[in-house]
């Protein structure tokens, strides 16, 4: 057994393939946080007063809050005064109009990551809004989308061009008082993506954003706002990966989705930020608030996530089911290896009549990884006939990792039906040997078993993303279980 444990370890210890550092000049605000820094950020971005006021209110509220510690994650104290809250690629303040204007160094970086921008954009028909550090540097397919009345742009641009929409919806799902990290984000967010689909319009392509953390000591505070107006449909993809580095980096994004009557939003994420090294040093702290609001009747919001990166992941993409007959879905694969920690899950808040939600969570732990599913299903008194189905499966690789499940259920309406199923299984040496005895290498056997475990979630991803996700799991797991 001892020898096979060693082998298992070797398999798990795959180096992070996206660990490299790009030397693009950045324009950085001094470290630390104060009202002055917030005013400076707001001024640099030429924001209207309402937004500055909102940031300041968020900051003042944040000062009254304490960092939460209820998640089953552990990390050294974060010094919020040692973080740089804003950095933008230099001499690109207006953003390039086309790919030709993008720093070639940056394009090479994307290529190393296997995301050849132009190729992806052209071949897959995907509109890519690439975020480098905090400012959008490339936006494509905008004209085609604009023809349909779709607005898809950086958050900063939305603030400039469509302040009324931003003002109407910003903070309407995740208020600046929501939680410690959301308040911090509200105070200092630098950029992100904005998307508005007008009534009755079906967005003809997958919208996609690639995030990347790069500048030293720069916390990332992305803000994403997606609005599907009545009867609209949009599928949005978010994918990220980060270069290798020593220091822990805080990432506290906020994503707000709003679906009005009969509208549908599908939001998919593949998250592969630097997870730290084999001993657990470095890596990204990913403390994200993602929430969707099914505001209108018959609306639908689906979250699909594949989480393989970050040292610590703390996120609960949630859906507030306000409209009658609204549908919320959460499909998740979360993988932790080495010393990674993940505390993730969802909240389904049933308010409207006959609202339905489905939760399918697949947790994979390897090495010393720790993986917790935390889910809340809440059925309010008003939610007559609400239904929820939750399935929560854990897969363990090796015997030093951990999986926890914390399902919270609060039902205030007697007509509601809430079902919960859970399972835990382990990839055993005997399964590996069985595959090996059929000629299959242990790494391949591991990814075969893991893919099998995840296939119900991958089914929910757009095709090309599913392939990417599968590859990612393979890379993240090389060494975990064969």
């Amino acid at each position: 057994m001892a020898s096979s444990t060693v082998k298992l370890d070797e398999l798990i210890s795959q180096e992070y393939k996206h660990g490299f550092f790009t030397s693009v000049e950045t324009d950085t605000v001094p470290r630390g946080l104060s009202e002055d820094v917030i005013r400076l950020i707001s001024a640099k971005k030429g924001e209207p007063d309402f937004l500055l006021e909102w940031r300041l209110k968020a900051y003042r509220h944040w000062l009254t809050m304490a960092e939460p510690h209820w998640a089953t994650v552990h990390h050294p104290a974060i010094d919020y005064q040692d973080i740089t809250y804003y950095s933008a690629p230099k001499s690109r303040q207006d953003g390039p109009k086309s790919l030709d204007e993008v720093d070639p160094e940056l394009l090479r970086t994307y290529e190393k990551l296997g995301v050849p921008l132009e190729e992806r954009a052209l071949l897959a028909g995907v509109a890519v809004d690439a975020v480098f550090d905090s400012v959008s540097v490339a936006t494509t397919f905008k004209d085609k989308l604009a023809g349909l009345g779709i607005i898809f742009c950086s958050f900063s641009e939305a603030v400039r061009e469509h302040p009324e929409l931003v003002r109407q919806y910003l903070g309407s799902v995740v208020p600046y008082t929501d939680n410690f990290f959301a308040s911090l984000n509200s105070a200092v967010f630098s950029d992100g993506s904005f998307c508005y689909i007008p009534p009755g319009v079906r967005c003809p392509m997958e919208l996609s954003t690639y995030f990347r953390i790069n500048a030293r000591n720069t916390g990332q505070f992305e803000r994403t706002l997606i609005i599907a107006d009545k009867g609209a449909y949009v599928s949005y993809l978010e994918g990220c990966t980060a270069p290798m580095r020593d220091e822990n980096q805080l990432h506290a994004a906020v994503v707000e989705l709003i679906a009005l009557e009969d509208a549908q939003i599908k939001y998919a994420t593949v998250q592969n930020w630097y997870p730290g090294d084999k001993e657990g040093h470095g890596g990204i702290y990913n403390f994200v608030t993602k929430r969707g609001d099914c505001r209108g009747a018959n609306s639908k919001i689906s979250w699909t996530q594949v989480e393989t990166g970050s040292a610590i992941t703390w996120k609960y993409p949630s859906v507030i089911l306000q409209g009658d007959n609204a549908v919320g879905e959460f499909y998740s694969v979360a993988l932790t290896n080495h010393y990674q920690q993940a505390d993730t899950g969802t909240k389904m808040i049933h308010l409207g009549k006959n609202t339905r939600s489905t939760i399918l969570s697949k947790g994979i732990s390897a090495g010393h990884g720790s993986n917790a599913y935390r889910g809340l299903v809440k059925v309010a008194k008003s939610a007559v006939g609400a239904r929820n189905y939750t399935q929560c499966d854990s897969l363990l690789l090796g015997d030093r990792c951990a999986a926890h499940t914390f399902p919270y259920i609060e039902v205030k309406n007697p007509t509601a039906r809430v079902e919960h199923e859970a399972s835990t299984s382990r990839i055993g040496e005997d399964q590996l040997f069985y595959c090996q005895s059929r000629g299959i290498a242990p790494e391949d056997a591991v990814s075969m078993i893991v893919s099998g475990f995840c296939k119900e979630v991958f089914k929910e991803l757009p095709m090309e993303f599913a392939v990417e996700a599968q590859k990612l799991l393979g890379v993240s797991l090389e060494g975990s279980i064969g």
Partner: protein
Amino acid sequence: MLDIRNLHVSINDKPILRGIDLTVRAGEVHAIMGPNGSGKSTLAHVLAGHEGYTVTAGEVRYLGRNLLELSPELRAREGIFLAFQYPVEIPGVANIYLLKAAVNALRQHRGEPELDAVDFLALVKDKLKLMGMDTDLLYRSVNEGFSGGEKKRNEILQMAVLEPRLALLDETDSGLDIDALKVVAGGVNAMRSPERAMVLVTHYQRLLNYIVPDQVHVLAQGRIALSGGRELALELENRGYGWVEAAAGPAGGGA
């Protein structure tokens, strides 16, 4: 094809095999019998490369190479196949998917292109019929919820698809009903060829009515205590193992 010399194997410092000598030539079928716990499965696992066993002495040559230095998957790619006494369940992985990964791993090793989906399916369906198996077993998770007999048939199906040079069948007949035994034996017999060797571990001479072996060996207390022809199996069935064990000497004793 296979040459085992003075093979000693322990598990957690406990000696299980204590000097096995066995030669199997291409085209031959050998049966290994012996009481429970005598080390038959241990031998099969060691030949397939299971890492839970420690070889403390001896050597094994396969097609002229030192078999013991090869990883289990390399052994499989070089043509060794083990039909497990207890086939392993792999939830979430479709049976056909494992089979395809295995076929392509072997083909890649031989420098052949991967089989496309159509050719692969034709190949599998053909063998499936031979084994009298239902197509839906292909799409279920590997061995999960399979009956005992279905698991054993599935092992032989894999063997038929992978076409090994040396097949080790560990109690493939156990748990099969009479009809299934005939089907499985038919499948095995169909694969007998001058280039292929087989080692059958069994407790029942009945199997040997259908698959007639060239040699029968009795494993007792970690050694081959007796070898003979087909008739040895009949004698064992009549007399039990006691007399062989007595002749082999006390357990744990020297040579």
